[in-house]
């Protein structure tokens, strides 16, 4: 497995998940923030340095994310 840096959260274990039959492009995914991107998209999508700062994620931001919908309490069994 060849790892890459996620352009969005900069996790270092992003990897290739699919390649077009004619090798026109590849798709990569980040197992931490679930970002997916295609090799033919612009550098503002592929390059961690150019990714829009408003949408960058960090481990801390992920830990603080709100659950939608909230997870309900388990029902009590009698």
């Amino acid at each position: 497995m060849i790892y890459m840096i996620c352009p969005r959260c900069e996790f270092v274990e992003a990897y290739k998940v699919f390649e077009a039959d004619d090798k026109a492009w590849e798709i990569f995914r980040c197992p931490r923030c679930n970002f997916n991107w295609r090799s033919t998209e612009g550098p503002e999508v592929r390059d961690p340095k150019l990714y829009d700062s408003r949408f960058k994620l960090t481990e801390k931001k992920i830990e603080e994310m709100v659950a939608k919908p909230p997870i309900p309490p388990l029902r009590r069994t009698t």
Partner: protein
Amino acid sequence: MPFNSLRAFLEKCEAEGQLVRIQENIKLEPDIRAASCAAAKIAEGPVLLFEKIEGYSNKQVAMNVHGSFQNHALMLDLPKQTGLRAQFAELVERWDRYPIPPKRVTDAPFKEVMIEKNLNLYKELPLFRVNPLDGGFYLSKACVVTRDPETGEDQNLGMYRMQIKDHDRIGIQAAAQHDIAVHLRKAEELNVPLRVAIAVSNEPVTSLVASTPLHYHQDEYSMIGAIRGEAAVVIASEKGNLDLPAGAELVIEGEIIPRKRFVEGPFAEYTGYYSSSMIQAEVQVDLISRRRDPIIFENLYSGLPWNEMDYMMAMSTSVAPFKQMETEFPELQAINAMYTHGYVTIISSKMRFGGFAKTLALRLLTTPHGITYPKFIIVVDDDIDPFDLQQVMWAISVRFRPERDLVLIPNAPGSTVDPTHLLRGITTKTIIDATKPVPPDIPLADGSVVDIPPETAFWMEEILKRRK
């Protein structure tokens, strides 16, 4: 004649000049989103059929299927120039045919290819990033089927944003106000997975009804039958106990993993803004069934309004609350909830007595859709067409008395993706009573409306004739 598949509807659109084939090699990004944005912004926007997709030798993409009121009329089997108010009236009438139960079949084109091993969503669908800062590739127009896991009843067909996150994993937005969230909450209370089926590329009334806010106990398939005037055609899922639209191009089956949330989004929402990344539910896929290639992947462009989503939701969010309110209030004339899923909603009605406009606005807020989405409600008299904004603005200008007719309800439930929120899911509801005050309220000081001269209609025709 109702359409039994997306393909049948595309044929109709082509015959009516409402389909444009894009035959050159197309890049998934940014070509599809840019062309789809354009199609909805031009007059009488056509369906776009992308026939040659870079990287997929045998897949096609259909966009803007609902993306004009002409396409919307064709979907309802009406002449394509049918006006808005007439389409509203037609849907109101057809709604009363509910329920027309679905017809069950045992074979469907999407059962031609069944994939249970080495599932790969990236291979099966020509996925693309809908807007540049979306967190991934989205199914933005697929229909999702679930059933109440506790009772085994109350099957739901809905449309929710879904992010493809891995070859067999899909994030799904189950917002608390939607029926799927009721199913998910019960499953999670019981700590069991929720079976789910996702139907991709459907005949257009299926998508219309899936995005219509029906009551929890109402059956979407029986409403599809009512709107079409002919039973919806369904087939059983391979796993679980779900009914699937038989005309679909591709169906994904799986289960929502209970009591877990995973990073999802952002996604460019109907508001014209990106929603934030949140942790949301996820589907583990265990079966993909589809037509033989070339399949057509239908998706929705959701960006800055107006776009296809606004056209698709315009009538459904207007007709549903109208029908839910009219049994109690027969004075109702029409509801226009076309603006940003009804964030701004206009109610037109006869007035029973003074203050009645407020009653109507408050009742809207207790309909399934009204609980969250509307936050700016304008009530006008029955002499105002709520679909004619010139008339609505006139009514506000001359009938609204701010000191008596403005109501603010703070700390009320609101849409979770409204960019103005201070607390997510909380809003202030605004009611603008732009009706003429009637007794026992104090009438307008100068209450005599100027009549249109009775000869106006004659002269309008004359002028148009002479202009030619």
